[in-house]
């Protein structure tokens, strides 16, 4: 199973990866520091799921989500963001994200997220 983790913060990626590996030790992780790199990696590797931050330089999460959903309308994208506004959640769900979870994401929350994804 391949999972793409997208966040401009190296430590936020590390934290998410650590949490993912606690639950899925064999998972193959791809990392991107912005939306543009994420879209390229998504095209090349077609990961089973994407964990996507919203506020990033170069290309933000909204734009990356749009492009990923154009590449594969069935892509399983989980938005992990500090932006907890209802409208932000509505926007990402309308763009095709599976769900949106607030940062920081702990092991229990991650377990529930993985359960809800068909991977």
């Amino acid at each position, binding site marked *: 199973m391949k999972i793409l983790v997208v966040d401009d913060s190296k*430590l936020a990626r590390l934290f998410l990866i650590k949490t993912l590996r606690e639950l899925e030790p064999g998972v193959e992780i791809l990392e991107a520091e912005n939306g543009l790199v994420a879209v390229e990696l998504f095209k090349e590797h077609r990961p089973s799921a994407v964990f996507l931050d919203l506020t990033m330089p170069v290309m933000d999460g909204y734009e990356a989500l749009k492009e990923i959903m154009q590449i594969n309308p069935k892509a399983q994208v989980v938005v992990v963001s500090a*932006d907890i506004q209802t409208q932000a959640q509505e926007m990402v769900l309308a763009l095709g994200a599976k769900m949106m979870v607030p*940062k920081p994401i702990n092991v229990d929350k991650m377990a529930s997220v993985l359960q809800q994804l068909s991977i």
Partner: protein
Amino acid sequence: MEQREFSEDHLDILRELMNIAMGNATASIADLLQAFGKMHIPKILISDMEGLHEYIRSAIPDNQRHYVTKQLFGGFFSGEFLFVISEESALNLGHHLYDVTQPSDGDILDAVVELTNILSATIISRLTEELNTKVQFFVPSTDLIAGNDLISPEDLLNYHSIIIINTRMEFQNHNINGQIFILTKDEMIDSLKALIDRKLEELYA
């Protein structure tokens, strides 16, 4: 401006924690204004006073008047929270919150102080919660200042090395924009570094 004493990891974690704190604050303000706020990536710099002046000059236009609210906070991590909002944005804020065309100066001031209280309490509390520490807040003061001389000469005497955490809040539909600065003094750089080190240890454990 040099980034002394803080490694890239320290700055990265501080930026990320600030991002989480700002997310909470934006949501609270969005509820208050019933509007969607755009989040920006926080900038974090370690600077001296001269650097702070240069930074403020580049970040705040000098051709407008600004409401500047300052609030001190104290604890293992202490410093000063500054919220800067242009007179025009403050008028729009008062207009929106009080639902009147021409809010009084008192109404505008009240709205700015209320907004600052929500911002400082949410941001600093969330930041310190993530760093496993607590702070106490002091009464804020607000001044209408012409240009961008936000820091008085007296204030300069209190600071040497400063951590500048700067971000913007933007509610475009209501034309309400503000800038946030969190300033801390010399010894706090060590305190903050120790708190972040503890957080990093947890992360790498």
